C-alpha cells in the first residue's frame, strides 16, 4: 500500500500537451505577477523562483539519493561566473579586471543569455562528474566534510585566480537584456498592441501587459527565465524521481548495501544524481548572477549551502514539493522578518534598532519548526500523497 503511494502516484505521467499547459500557465502567472506585484515583492518572487531551482535540484542528491553533499555553493558559483563572463563583452571585461589582465579565453567568451545558462549548467555538470570519482569513495558524514571542502576550495580558487574571476572584487554590471527571445517577445507584444487590424480588447490587453512588463523599467527577462526554468526543473526532477533511476536513487538512500546486492550500480546512480543536480545548480547560479547583476566570491560561501540545506530539510528531505514549500517559507519568511532589522517600535515605544536581530529570530523559528516537525513539513511525501485525515505534523 505504502509502496504504491510513494512510487506509483506519479503526477508527471501526463501527456506532452499537459506539460505545455503547465508552461503556458506559468507564463500567464509570470506576466500577471509582473503587472500586479510591486517592485520589492517582484524581487522576492524572483528570488524564490531561483531558489526553487537550486532547492529541488539539491534535493535530488541530498534527499532522494541520500548523499549528504554540501557543495552546491561551488556549483552555483561556477554557474554564476560562467554566465557572467559570457554575458559581458570584451571591452567591459578589460575595463573591469583590475587585479590582473583577463585570460585570453575569458576575453573570447561571449554569448546570449540562454547559451550562457546552458554552458553554466554543462560546466558545472562536467566538474561534478570529475569530482564524483574522488568524492564517492567515501560515504555518510565523511562525504559531507569532503564535499564541504570542495565547495570551499572552489570559492578559494575564485578568490585567487584574478585573471579568470577578477578575484575578490568580483564582476559587476552583468547585462540582463542580452536575450533575443525576450526581445522578440517584446517586439511581438508591441506590434500587436499597435496593430490596426486587431480587435480593441486584445490590443488593450496587450498594451496593458506591455506597459507593465517592459516599460516600467522592471527586469522582465530574468524574471521570465527564472519562472520557465524553475517549472522545467520541477518537471524534470519529478520525472527523474518517478523513473527507474529515481527508484534506484531511493534504494541507495534507504540501504546502500542492499542496493548493491540488488545489482544497482550505486556509483553510477550517485553520479547521475550528482551531475543532474550540479547542472541545474549551475543554471540557477547563472540566473542568480544575472539577477544580482554583481557577483563576488563572498556570496558563494557555506552560508549558501546551509541555507539550501535548511530549505530542503525544513520542507521535508526527499520531497520535491516540500523543497518548493521550504523555499517559500525560508526565502519569503526571511524577507518578512526584515522589519526586525529596522528600528523597532511597539505600541508607540521606540526600542532602538538592532542589526542582526532578524537572523536571531530566524534561527529561533527554525529551531522550533525542527523540534516540532522532525522530518520536515512534508516528510518524504509529496503534496499529492498527503492524506488530509492524518495529522499534519508528526512527532
Amino acid at each position, binding site marked *: 500500500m505504502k509502496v504504491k503511494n510513494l512510487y506509483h502516484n506519479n503526477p508527471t505521467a501526463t501527456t506532452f500537451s499537459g506539460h505545455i499547459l503547465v508552461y503556458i500557465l506559468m507564463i500567464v502567472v509570470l506576466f500577471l505577477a509582473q503587472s500586479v506585484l510591486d517592485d520589492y515583492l517582484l524581487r522576492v518572487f524572483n528570488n524564490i523562483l531561483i531558489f526553487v531551482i537550486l532547492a529541488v535540484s539539491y534535493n535530488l542528491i541530498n534527499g532522494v539519493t541520500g548523499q549528504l553533499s554540501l557543495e552546491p555553493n561551488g556549483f552555483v558559483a561556477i554557474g554564476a561566473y560562467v554566465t557572467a563572463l559570457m554575458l559581458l563583452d570584451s571591452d567591459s571585461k578589460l575595463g573591469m579586471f583590475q587585479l590582473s589582465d583577463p585570460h585570453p579565453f575569458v576575453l573570447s567568451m561571449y554569448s546570449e543569455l540562454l547559451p550562457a545558462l546552458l554552458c553554466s549548467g554543462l560546466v558545472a555538470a562536467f566538474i561534478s562528474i570529475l569530482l564524483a570519482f574522488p568524492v564517492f569513495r567515501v560515504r555518510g558524514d565523511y562525504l559531507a566534510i569532503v564535499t564541504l571542502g570542495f565547495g570551499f576550495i572552489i570559492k578559494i580558487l575564485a578568490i585567487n585566480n584574478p585573471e579568470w574571476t577578477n578575484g575578490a572584487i568580483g564582476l559587476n554590471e552583468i547585462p540582463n537584456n542580452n536575450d533575443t527571445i525576450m526581445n522578440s517577445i517584446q517586439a511581438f507584444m508591441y506590434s500587436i498592441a499597435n496593430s490596426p487590424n486587431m480587435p480593441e480588447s486584445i490590443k488593450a490587453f496587450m498594451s496593458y501587459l506591455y506597459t507593465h512588463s517592459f516599460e516600467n523599467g522592471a527586469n522582465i527577462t530574468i524574471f521570465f527565465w527564472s519562472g520557465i526554468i524553475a517549472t522545467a526543473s520541477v518537471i524534470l526532477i519529478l520525472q527523474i524521481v518517478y523513473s527507474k533511476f529515481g527508484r534506484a536513487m531511493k534504494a541507495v538512500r534507504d540501504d546502500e548495501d542492499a542496493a548493491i546486492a540488488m545489482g544497482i550500480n550505486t556509483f553510477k546512480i550517485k553520479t547521475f544524481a550528482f551531475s543532474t543536480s550540479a547542472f541545474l545548480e549551475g543554471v540557477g547560479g547563472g540566473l542568480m548572477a544575472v539577477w544580482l547583476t554583481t557577483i563576488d566570491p563572498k556570496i558563494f560561501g557555506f552560508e549558501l549551502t546551509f541555507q539550501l540545506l*535548511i530549505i530542503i*530539510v525544513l520542507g521535508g528531505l526527499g520531497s520535491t514539493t516540500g523543497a518548493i514549500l521550504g523555499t517559500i517559507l525560508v526565502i519569503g519568511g526571511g524577507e518578512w522578518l526584515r522589519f526586525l532589522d529596522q528600528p523597532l517600535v511597539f505600541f508607540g515605544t521606540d526600542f532602538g534598532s538592532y542589526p542582526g536581530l532578524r537572523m536571531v529570530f530566524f534561527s529561533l523559528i527554525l529551531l522550533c519548526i525542527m523540534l516540532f516537525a522532525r522530518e520536515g513539513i512534508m516528510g518524504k511525501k509529496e503534496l499529492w500523497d498527503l492524506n488530509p485525515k492524518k495529522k499534519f505534523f508528526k512527532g
Partner: protein
Amino acid sequence: MDFLTLIQQCINGISLGSTYALIAIGYTMVYGCLRLINFAHADIMMVGAFLSFFAINSLGLPFIASAIFAILLCILLGIIIDKIAYLPLRSAPRISMLITAIGISFFLENIFNVFFGSTPKFFNAPEFLSQNINIVGISLTHITIIIPAVTILLLIMLLQFLYNTKQGMAIRATAFDIHTIGLMGINVNTIIAIVFAIGSSLAGIGGIFYAVSYPTIDPLMGVLIGLKAFAAAVLGGIGSVGGAVLGGFILGFTEVMAVAIFPNLGGYKDAFAFLFLILVLLFRPVGIMGDWKLEKSRF
C-alpha cells in the same frame, strides 16, 4: 629561509595546531556519541573568547579569572544547547539534529552580533603572554609555548578520565553503542551532558588561546576555525580523541609550514586543511586513526 626561522615556524604551526586540536576534541567526542556534526561547537569557541573579553573589559576581572568565568559559562552553554536542541531529537533522523545545530550556530553568531556588533574587537591579553623569549636563538612569544603545553596536559587529563574512571568508560560505551548502554542501567543523557561539558570547556579554552595569539575577535571567527577543526577531527579518524589531537597538530603544522615555504600560496592558506583531508580520505576513508570495524556498524 634559514634553519632557525624554520624551527620558529614549526613551533608556530604546532601552536596553531593545538588550538585546532582543542576544538577538534569536542567535535570528535560529540560525533562519537551522537553521530552529529555539531556545527554549533565552533561558535562555543567564539563565545568563550567573547565572554573572556567581556569579563576583562566590563567586569574588570584579571585574565585568569576571566578565563575561568568564560569556561564555566561555556560548559553551561554546551549543556543547555544539548538539552534544548539535541535531546528532543535523539530518535529523529540525524539530519534534523544537523539543522538544529546550524540553527544554534546562526543564533549564537547573531546574538553576539547584536550585543557586541560585527566589527572586530581587540582582545587585550596580559602583556606577559605576548613577551618574547629567546631559546638558543629562536625568538618565540610565551603564548606559542604555553598553548601546546596546556593542550598536551589537557589531553593527558582527558585520556585519564576516559580510560580510568567509570564515567569515562560510560562515555566510551556510549560511543560504541548508544542503544545498548541505556539497557545497562546508565543514564545516557547524563553521559552526553558530560561529553558536551568537556567539549565546550575545551572549545572555550581554545577560543581564549586563539584570541590571545591572534588578538582580534568577531562573532564570525568560529566559522572557519570550526570547519578546519572538524576537518582535523575527520583527518585523525572521527570518534578518536587521540586522532583529533593528531589531526589538529598536522593541519596547523601544514598550514603554517606551507605558507612559510611557499609564500605565493598564501591565498590558499584556508584551503590546505580541506585539500589535505581529501587526499588522506582518498587513501584511508576512515581517517588516520579511525577504525574500519566501527565504520561498518555506523553507516
